[in-house]
């Protein structure tokens, strides 16, 4: 297995007024090229912290992160990030939002027509070619998140990083976008790391599910392979025994072995 993303012995400690807070410790993970990884865990377990480390938005307190054998020292165009709340710039149209990213990465080498063509292709990929002239406030939440995905994919990143990309959407829209994401990832052969707290979403989309223990000082509790063939179909999948086994294993981890931390706050604070 080719090690494309390597996370080696990474820990993250934040300085707070009440002393140092250990968010993550001893994280070791490798991701192969073309692999789809989900990070799952309860709120506050540091999944987003880990994703931010890969994105380069924060630097680890210890350990090292590598992408294609190069150390991650900051944010870069080799990683496309989809934020939880879409984070489109409200004063730019959908087209301009994507174009801003494209221009930054390819602007030095390509003509304006080529850049516009890339932008158009990215919006077409998420099925929004018709909405490119609209402002974010004029489109629905699901469409905004699709523009966010288009913006991340348009720069042809080596890795697609998604922080609960569908968390703010209603269940039907979420299912629809998950299906779209399956198709897009298959078509672009993207390597992807996604933060989620939805077990079904993780099983449907992932090759492996990385399950984190509860924070503080969270670490990887278990890595669950999802041996389901691709292309995957939501309806056909839901009755397959492997699907149900994966789902059961993830639920078991999250709710029996590492139950909701909010139910025993005293213990969590002492740690």
């Amino acid at each position, binding site marked *: 297995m080719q090690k494309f993303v390597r996370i080696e012995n990474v820990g993250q400690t934040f300085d707070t007024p009440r002393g140092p807070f250990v968010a993550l410790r001893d994280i070791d993970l490798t991701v192969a090229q073309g692999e789809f990884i989900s990070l799952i865990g309860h709120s506050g377990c540091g999944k987003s912290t880990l994703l931010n480390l890969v*994105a380069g*938005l924060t630097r680890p307190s210890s350990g090292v992160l590598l992408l294609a054998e190069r150390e991650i020292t*900051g*944010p*870069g*165009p080799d*990683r496309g*990030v989809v*934020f939880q*709340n879409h*984070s489109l*710039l*409200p*004063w*730019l149209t959908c087209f301009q939002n994507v174009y*801003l*990213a494209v221009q*930054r990465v390819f602007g030095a080498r390509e003509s304006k027509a080529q850049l516009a063509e890339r932008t158009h292709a990215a919006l077409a990929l998420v099925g929004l070619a018709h909405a490119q002239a609209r402002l974010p*406030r004029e489109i629905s939440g699901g469409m905004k998140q699709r523009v966010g995905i288009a913006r991340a994919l348009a*720069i042809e990143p080596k890795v697609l990083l998604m922080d609960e990309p569908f968390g703010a959407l209603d269940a039907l829209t979420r299912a629809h976008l998950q299906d779209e994401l399956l198709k897009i990832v298959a078509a672009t052969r993207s390597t992807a790391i996604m933060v989620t707290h939805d077990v079904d979403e993780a099983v449907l989309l992932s090759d492996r599910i990385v399950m984190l223990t509860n924070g503080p000082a969270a670490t990887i509790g278990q890595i669950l392979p999802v041996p389901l063939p691709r292309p995957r179909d939501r309806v056909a999948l839901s009755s397959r025994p492997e699907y149900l086994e994966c789902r059961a294993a993830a639920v078991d981890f999250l709710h029996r072995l590492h139950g909701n931390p909010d139910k025993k706050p005293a213990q969590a604070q002492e740690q």
Partner: protein
Amino acid sequence: MSTVSSSLSPEAPRWPAALRSACDAAARAAIGPLAGFALFLLAWQVIATSIPEIPTPGATWLAARELFADPFYDNGPNDKGIGWNVLASLQRVAVGFGLAALVGIPVGFIMGRYAMVSAMFSPIVSLLRPVSPLAWLPLGLLLFKAADPAAIWAIFICSIWPMVMNTAAGVARVPRDYLNVARVLNLSEWQVITRVLLPAVLPYMLTGVRLSIGTAWLVIVAAEMLTGGTGIGFWLWDEWNNLKVEHIVIAIFVIGLVGLGLEIVLLRLARRFAYAEE
């Protein structure tokens, strides 16, 4: 009226009904203000009849008609039409205000972007902001040795604080998400400023500008009373010295109308540039 009917003329059969409902709406909207003004005039009339020095609304109206029959006459430096005086005041406000924007907005930007600079200048701004701009007038006279630049100086001083404070607050309040987007996309500092910060801060900046123009218009009247020369403030004071009380009342209305106009123009501008989140 003619534009309304001509724009609706393609739908000729329906326009009388549409016009009637538009008239009804206008009448309903106008009834409150009209009643208010009627009461105001009544109170004025009562006061003016009991105090003989105060001109009645009718006398003021006659004086105003005479005055506005020729607002742009020029009989030498101390006797100019009211139009020239208003324009002189507006010009001073524009210059002082423009200079304040030129200085205040970049300073506010830097203060909002760099915590260190903010820590340095915030106490100074907090200290100087409550000072009446007129307190700066003697320093202006000392520095520029002329009345006109001193008045502009007072406008500059009073306009700059809201611009600095609002711009700085706007920059500091740019949502983290947008800055993260800028970081993830690896935007250059220039692109961060033009594509992310400026559009995000513009509504705050325009609020600062709107607050400034209100104060600037207040201050120019007072400053001109002190500096003399031309301007609506000087004119008002001059008419007091001539004991033309009708003209003082007229000046009050003119100052109010011009201030209202400035406010409306800037509100329009602010609405034009404000982005809506959702």
